[in-house]
């Protein structure tokens, strides 16, 4: 594995929301999850990462967010090494993982408040932000309810709200609309669009719904067997692989 190339200017790395260079990941059981994956997501971009199950999406997200062990000098969030400068890097990342895991000892409101406080927010500030997000995600009527008493859709919304409490510059959503009904999915889309446009948040989205990627993402990458095999806009990918829509290009690329 080569080191970070010296011709990459510091400003290029600093300006990228996520900069990944030749990243490899071998799990303890010998599974090779990532094979020299390189990815560059410009700041302010709504970026989609598409690939089949087991292609390495969640591994990459885990390594960026601190849930999976990562090597130093390979992953940078706004110029901060996620290993060597873990604290500074993590402050800029909000992640809504694929599986919903919420602290069952806390109420819906407290899930958000404590998350904010884990990220250094003061008590009052975290409470204010939690109130704001409960409103946005239509959870205000459930503030005192424990997460395990919420419906699946509500838990999913709470998970996304939790990722947003500390106002991250890079929001990572790992299949955020999996198992969510169409109405709520559309609502989430409209919220994510607003967030991206008005708050300049960079979004990295993984999804199996290609119409979702097409509707939201400015740029996309296809990932297969731990490697990025193609990237570009929907138009560029369709042009490269043929067909009339992203779905055609995706199916062709994964062949």
């Amino acid at each position: 594995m080569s080191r970070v190339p010296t011709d990459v200017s510091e400003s290029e790395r600093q300006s990228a929301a996520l900069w990944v260079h030749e990243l490899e990941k071998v799990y303890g059981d010998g599974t090779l999850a990532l094979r020299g994956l390189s990815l560059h997501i410009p700041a302010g971009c709504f970026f989609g990462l598409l690939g089949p199950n087991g292609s390495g999406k969640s591994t990459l997200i885990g390594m960026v967010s601190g849930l999976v062990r990562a090597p130093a000098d390979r992953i940078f969030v706004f110029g901060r090494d996620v290993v060597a400068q873990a604290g500074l890097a993590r402050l800029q990342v909000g992640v809504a993982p694929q599986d919903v895991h919420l602290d069952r000892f806390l109420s819906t409101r407290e899930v958000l408040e404590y998350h904010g406080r884990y990220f250094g927010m003061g008590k009052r500030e975290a409470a204010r932000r939690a109130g704001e997000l409960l409103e946005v995600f239509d959870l205000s009527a459930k503030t005192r309810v424990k997460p395990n008493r919420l419906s699946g859709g509500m838990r999913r919304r709470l998970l996304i709200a939790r990722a947003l409490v500390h106002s991250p510059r890079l929001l990572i959503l790992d299949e955020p609309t999996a198992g969510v009904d169409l109405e709520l999915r559309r609502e989430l889309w409209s919220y994510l669009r607003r967030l991206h446009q008005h708050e300049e948040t960079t979004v990295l989205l993984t999804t199996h719904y290609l119409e979702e990627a097409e509707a939201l993402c400015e740029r996309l990458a296809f990932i297969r067997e731990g490697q990025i095999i193609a990237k570009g806009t929907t138009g560029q990918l369709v042009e490269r692989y043929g067909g009339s829509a992203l779905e055609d290009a995706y199916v062709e690329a994964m062949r």
Partner: protein
Amino acid sequence: MAAPPVDSRELRVVRRRGSWALASREMRRVMSLWTQTLLPPVLTGVIFLAIFGGALGGQLRTIVGVEYLRFILPGLLVMTVAGQAFANNSTSLFQAKNEGYIEDVLTSPIPPWQLLLGYMSGGLLRGWLSALVLALVAAPFAGGVDQPWLTLFALVLTGLIFAALGVITGMWADSFDQHSFIASVLITPLALVAGVFYAPDRLGQPWQTLTRLDPIYYLVDATRHGYTGAHETSTVTALGVAAVAAAAIIALAVTLLRRGWRLKA
């Protein structure tokens, strides 16, 4: 608008607040579940005192010159602090890991040593508070503390050692059986042969040697020295060894958290 980036100085404040938030979450859990976390150890201690101190104490009268109930109380305090600090932290971390919500803190900027501090605080509160209540309940019968600072220091070390051990066990356990295995196979037997209810030099072999090999015995002896003035071993040596053990176990826990041992793939 997304939050602006912070510098290293601000990061220190962020981390301190994060660690305190985790500590307050852990302590809140202890207080809100007080019927499960605080009441049982106090009741157990009182029952031990009633049966051993009251019933058996009537037969034994004194041991190493100390009234039996007063003799066993320091050991019961050590057992309470050790058992509760251990059980609380191993359970809390095991639950967080098993149910997946540990990702909330693992993705945060809180560094490993401050994560440990946060997780340990719940067990320390539970252990020390249970012991304090037990001591207050027993005080009218067992008499006052001879050397408060020595007693306090020995119980602080006991708490630190077992709170950190609890965190390590919570990280290690992959099932509830594994989680309770350490408590039932290691902690309880060690506590029972630690000279809580007897003076080792009155026992025959191999119990005398077994007791002297038990690390908890030295914590019991130091606490007994502080509470009653009576002791068998060098308290300076006992507390020195306990302090080194606490530092070593805490360092091990920090290292394991830094590596994400059994927490990160």
